[in-house]
């Protein structure tokens, strides 16, 4: 069973998931706009765009800023649940022993069956926001900004896969996994600066932010929010950070997940 088979099974699984869970599909389409509406609505009731620019300290459009934040937040969360949470899902439906015993490494199975879903979900969410961004930013500038967001979603996926696989290995060895994943997800997003820029957080929180790959994904997506054309130097710098994190987290997950698998098999924690 090669990587191609895993990718194919991932695509088929997702298509049938959407076909058979239409309410989940509709909800997936509605959520990003609801999140965006909630934050912008609260912002409009409690303050103004001018104060927003002053507080952030950058010449940004609040709408594009939160579109980029929402998109990066949604895809980061999707990776965590898609790879890390799939251990939990397999355990619930009784397929985890088969995944552990299959010829491929568990991390490879979890990651490669998930990649098509990630790309599909990210593309759908980007397409959803595209009319709004084009309407606000104009055709050429809007297209450029959507390009930056697409780049952030794609490059940002690579270290996040390793990070989530590390998480999956940890989940293999404990029992109450959903409790950990549920509260760690918002905490990770909080430290990554999902809605509130990481550079405005306290110093100790900025140290945590620095080691999270989602911080750089969100920052890269937000480059799109700057008024005018995105700065190429900053984009390159953030891509560089994401590539370094890809190497770090993916090699670490490769080592750690083996230990997690061995422990799960030895102790029967499946």
């Amino acid at each position, binding site marked *: 069973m090669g990587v191609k088979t895993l990718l194919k099974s991932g695509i088929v699984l997702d298509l049938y998931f959407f076909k058979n869970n239409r*309410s*989940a599909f*509709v*909800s997936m389409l*509605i*959520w990003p706009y*609801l*999140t965006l*509406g*909630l*934050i912008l*609505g*609260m*912002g*409009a*009731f*409690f*303050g*103004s*765009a001018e*104060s*927003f620019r*002053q*507080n*952030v300290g950058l010449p940004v459009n*609040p709408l594009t800023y*939160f579109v980029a*934040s929402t998109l990066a937040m949604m895809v980061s969360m999707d990776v965590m649940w898609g790879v890390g949470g799939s251990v939990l899902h397999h355990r619930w439906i009784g397929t985890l022993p088969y995944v552990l015993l299959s010829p491929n490494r568990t991390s490879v199975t979890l990651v490669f069956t998930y990649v098509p879903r990630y790309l599909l979900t990210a593309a759908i969410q980007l397409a959803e926001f595209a009319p709004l961004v084009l309407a606000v930013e104009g055709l050429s500038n809007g297209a450029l900004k959507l390009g930056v967001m697409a780049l952030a979603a794609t490059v940002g996926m690579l270290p996040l896969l390793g990070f989530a696989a590390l998480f999956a290995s940890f989940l293999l060895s404990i029992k*109450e996994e*959903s*409790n*950990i994943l*549920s*509260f760690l*997800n*918002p*905490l990770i*997003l*909080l430290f990554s600066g*999902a*809605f*509130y820029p990481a550079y405005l957080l306290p110093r100790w929180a900025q140290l945590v932010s620095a080691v999270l790959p989602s911080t750089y994904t969100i920052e890269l997506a937000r480059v799109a929010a700057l008024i005018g054309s995105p700065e190429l130097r900053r984009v390159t710098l953030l891509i560089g950070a994401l590539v370094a994190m890809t190497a770090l987290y993916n090699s670490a997950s490769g080592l750690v997940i083996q230990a997690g698998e061995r422990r799960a098999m030895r102790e029967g924690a499946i």
Partner: protein
Amino acid sequence: MAASEALVRVKAVLWLHSLRLWRYRYSFLNMILSEGAWIFMFVLGALLFVPSEKLGVAVKGAFWTIVAWSVVSNFSSLVGGWMDFFISIGMVEEHLVRGFSPFRTLLGRVVTGLSVIVVSLLFMAALVGGAFHVNLLHAESLLLLLLGMGLLAVQSLSYGFTVASVAVRTSVPNNLLEILNLVVVGLLMVPVQALPEGLRLAFLCIPYVAPAHLVKLATGAGEGLEYAALAVAGVEALAMAAVAVWATKWAIQWVRRNGVRAIGFW
């Protein structure tokens, strides 16, 4: 004799839910931590729009809006959502055979709901208040605050019981209910005093809006229409409770004739 039997049953229901709360203490802690973190994240995002001189009032307004939403969301999902679990483990039939309404057992979920709401409220107040140096728990009128929260609890519990009654007959997609919860927070955010005068009373008549306005009045985050909000919230709470009682009776009769549907709320 009847009174002592009723007392034993009340004790059994309370014991059941308190014991479950203890056994699922990590889930309980997880719920509080995750709810606190999500809310903190949204509040931080919204406060980026606020000029620094108005931060104190805005933090309070945002915090109590979210607390009101937390009451609505927790009671409707923790009560309504638990029915599916109860159905799936076959407990509805067991209770009916023993002459005890499953909905009375469901009443004990108030213990779980209240615990989650109160501990989350304190946790969030410490988190948000600590970050912005604002005493979020200071109320200008404690009585009005308790009244507002109480009416909000009655309305959301009634909604939870109505959904639980529907769940014994048909499934309600969880995702769409979560979306409904998010729509509610949008409604609760709107300051009544910012609307045109002719619309204010009509807006208060939307479920949850009037009691949430009372909470905002009590904490100094809203102004005006105190008596109108009190009257509307009281009438609505009574009407919603009556609908919930009727729905549970209808559900019991339906289950006795047709049996329980195995797929419920979630």
